[in-house]
Every structure is written in structure tokens, then in C-alpha cells.
């Protein structure tokens, strides 16, 4: 039963994660993108951020709800986030700036949000490379340490989003979610939550 549940969750993850790309390609093919470069940039960026947040949500979901299966899709979520981040970056460098590095140099100097976004992407790169089980074994304890870089990456991604938006209320909402997901991980808070859960569980048993 548990295995079946995991299987379905995995299928759902792959389908959902590929949906934004399929939708984008469909809209482009239908000629529905008025400013394709902008649309591809924003949509891949948003997909990357949402998937990154979902990958960050797996651990808290397990802590709060004891729903262990989500841990089985965490890597896929993270890798899809990296895929969209890469598309986002390539769109910016290639489609938007036509690989014109003079222009890009100027662009980056004038646009601090670009720098921050680039930094977030760079942090994700080693995580994507070392996402395999082989690397996990090779790095041992350090693997976990390395993969905590995702916290910094997500914070940088929020800063990137907030700085580029004309109206930053949307980005700040994403920021609040990320903040919550990080707060839940703080050891003291994490322990309090699991204690509370344990207490709830035993009480439920007792009243039954």
C-alpha cells in the first residue's frame, strides 16, 4: 500500500513538473506568446522557484504530518528546479542577450538582481551534479552539509525575484513561504513540533 502510494506520488511529481514546460511549448506553438522571450524567462523562472520551494517543503511535510513518502520525490523536485533554472539562465543569456557578452557585462553591472539570480543558480549546480546515490555515498556526511546550500539558494532566489519585480508583494509572499519552511527546520522548533505530534498521537490513542 505504501509502495503504491509512493509510486503515484512519483508519477504525479514528474507530470506536474513537466507541465509548465509543455504548456509553454504549446503556447509558443499556438503563437500565443506576445513577448516570447519575456514569457519564457518569467515562466521558467517561476517554475524553478516553485519546484525549489516544493523540494524544500518535503522535509517540513514529513516533520509536521509524518508523510514520509514525500522524501522519495525530493530529489526529482530539486532536479526539475535545476532544469528550469538552467532554461531560465539560457533564455536570458541566449535568447534575450544573444550571447552578447559586452551587453551582458553591462547588464549585470546595472542589474544586481541578475547577479543574485546567477549566484542562486551557481549554488544549485554542485547540488544537481552530486544528486546521484553514488555521489551521496562518496561524500558521506559532507553530502548533507553540501546540500544545505539549497537554503541559501532559495533565499537568493527570493531576493532575485523581489528585486526584479515592479510590485514586490507577490515575491514577498513566496518569501514568507520559504521563511516558514526554513524556520520549521531550526532544531529547537523541529523538536517541539515532533514532540507535539507525538503527544497528539498518544492522546488520540488514549481517547479511543
Amino acid at each position, binding site marked *: 500500500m505504501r509502495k503504491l502510494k509512493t509510486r503515484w506520488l512519483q508519477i504525479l511529481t514528474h507530470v506536474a513538473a513537466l507541465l509548465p514546460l509543455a504548456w509553454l511549448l504549446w503556447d509558443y506553438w499556438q503563437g500565443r506568446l*506576445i*513577448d516570447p522571450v519575456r514569457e519564457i524567462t518569467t515562466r521558467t523562472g517561476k517554475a524553478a522557484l516553485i519546484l525549489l520551494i516544493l523540494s524544500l517543503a518535503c522535509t517540513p511535510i514529513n516533520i509536521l504530518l509524518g508523510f514520509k513518502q514525500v522524501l522519495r520525490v525530493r530529489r526529482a523536485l530539486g532536479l526539475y528546479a535545476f532544469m528550469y533554472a538552467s532554461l531560465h539562465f539560457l533564455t536570458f543569456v541566449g535568447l534575450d*542577450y544573444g550571447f552578447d557578452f559586452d551587453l551582458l557585462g*553591462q*547588464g549585470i553591472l546595472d*542589474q544586481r538582481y541578475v547577479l543574485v539570480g546567477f549566484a542562486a543558480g551557481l549554488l544549485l549546480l554542485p547540488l544537481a551534479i552530486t544528486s546521484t546515490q553514488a555521489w551521496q555515498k562518496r561524500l558521506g556526511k559532507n553530502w548533507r552539509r553540501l546540500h544545505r546550500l539549497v537554503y541559501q539558494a532559495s533565499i537568493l532566489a527570493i531576493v532575485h525575484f523581489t528585486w*526584479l519585480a*515592479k*510590485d514586490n508583494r507577490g515575491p514577498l509572499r513566496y518569501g514568507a513561504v520559504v521563511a516558514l519552511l526554513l524556520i520549521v527546520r531550526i532544531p529547537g522548533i523541529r523538536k517541539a513540533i515532533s514532540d507535539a505530534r507525538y503527544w497528539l498521537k498518544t492522546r488520540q490513542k488514549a481517547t479511543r
Partner: protein
Amino acid sequence: MGAGSKYRELDNGDKYIMIKINPSEITPEHVYLSRRKFMVGIGALLTSSLVLSACGGDLSQSPERSEGSGEGLSKGPQEPSPTPPTAEPGPDGPVFPTVSATTDELGEKLTSYEVVIQYNNYYEFTTNKERVAFLAQDFKTSPWKVEVGGLVHKPKTFDIDDLYKLPQEERIYRLRCVEAWSMVIPWVGFPLAKLLKEVEPMAEAKYVRFETLYDPDQMPGQKSGGYNWPYVEGLRMDEAMHDLTILATGLYGKSLLPQNGAPVRLVVPWKYGFKSIKSVVKIDLVEEMPVSLWMATAPHEYGFYANVNPEVPHPRWSQATERRIGEFGRRETLLFNGYAEEVADLYAGLDLKKWY
């Protein structure tokens, strides 16, 4: 239901005809038009006496306007000539010139009508550019009044039909958004100066302050906080009186649609798009520099002048380049959006970095 709204219905009906014409008539790139064309189409021919009497001597090209339009039409290699307006104006309806060219004076292709009416920055409805048209579709533009007052000798409230009665000219302008994208739009309208002269500004009037309609029931974006609605914009008196500054009532030879700022909006082509305030209900001549909505919202990002300038970056992004909607890649942004010859004098001695 006034005649204005009747016109709009007819107008909407023939929208598709215009869409068909546009792509098939694209002027080959090499056919550049040699000078800016402030052309007056059929509308002005019909009302040429009005043009001559109302323009005054300051508009250098006014006496030869009808000639100018003839010249412009014959220059296009793509006969047949553009379809005349199919909608007969009612007694009070606007008489709009048809689209007379397929490029601006720099040879830049017009942005298609479909795109112009589907890609709009109009925060009173939504911040989503592609949803404005949908949310604005039921916006009531008739009846509509524009109150012109403040430091003037003859304050007057104009009915939109009064404004439609003024001779409507075509002005093909580049529109450069502060977000670094741009379009080329064939507006229809009349110089703001014409309206301001009618109310006789006092000597103390140094600035013009504009206000958009405030009606949260019709404009859902005005319900959201964070902005100090209504939208306010301002121009210095000399900017407002400049011949390039127009009040637009239409585009592509038709009445404006709500998403483009119907029924009447400002167009100041050498400034970032947000200066060109939409759906104007109030124009006041004032002594002090007005504080625009964007100046109030983010003073370090948006100044009073907002002149298009590739050398002055927005605090968060570069303004050196822009993307013309419909193109991949970027092109260089021109100082004053390519209108430096006409407007640079206005800012002689002004530090454009300080007065952004």
C-alpha cells in the same frame, strides 16, 4: 447611449478588417520614410478649415497638412491605399484618419493592432499585461467628462464628444516602457497644447497635473493597496505645450479600447510609457511640480521627468537596451526615445542623471 458609444460598437465590428490589412501591407524595410509624418487623413480633409483655424501659427506643418498626407500616401509602394473608416461618424462621433503608413519615420514597423490591444500595463485593472484587455472589456467610457481647471482663466469641463470634434491627427510614435520593451503605435489624437490654449493658462501655471478616473467598482486594481490611487502624472508646462505631446482618442484609426486608456489618454513619446496617463478625467494647471503616483510609490526609482535615456539606468535594471515586442533579442535604446532632435532643447542645462 450617446453617439460615441454607438461609434464604438461599429468600431469593434470592423476591428478584424484592420487586422487583415496590417500584415499584408508591411512596407519593405528599405522603403524608409524620409521625415516624420504628422499626417491627417480623411478626417482632417473634411475639417480642414477647422484645422487651419484651430492650430494657430505655432505648428509649423499645419498649413501643409493635407498636402503632407497626400505625399505620405503616395510614398507607400503598397497600393491599394488603406481602407477608409467603415464606420460613419455620428453627428458627435469622432472622425479618425486611417492608418497612413506601415512604419514610423525611422522605418520601424508598426506593432500589430492585435498586440497593441492585448499587451497593456494598466495597474488599475491588473498588473498582468495580458489580462488587462479582458478585465477592462466592460469599462464605461461614455458618458465621459474631462475637467480642465486650476490656474487658468477659463476653466472648462469638456465632454468627450467635444474632444472628438477637434480635428484628429495621426501620430506614429515609438512607445518605450520603463520595463525595457517597446512598440510602435499609430495613435490618433490632437496636441494637448490645443486644449490648454482653450482654457487660457495663467502666467503662474508652471506644471500640468493629470488624473485618471477613480472607480474601484470598474477598476478592480484600485481596490488593492500599495498604491495611492488615483493615478496621477505631470508635465512641465513647456513639455505639455510641445507639439509631440498629444491627447490620444484612438489608435489604428479607431477609438481607443479601454485597455489602451479609453476614451482619452496622454501620449508623450520621449518619456517612459508610465508618463502617458490613461483614461484622463482631470487636468489641472498648477504652480508646484505634481507628485505622480510612481514618485509617491517609489521616489528613488521613478522621478518626475522619466525621459527615455539609455545612460540612466533604473536602480534595478539597465535602460541601455530594449526589446521591440514581436522580436527576439534586443536593440539599443535611443536618447529621448529617438526624439532628441525635437525635445533635447527642453532640457538644456538640466542634469538628466539627477532629474531622472
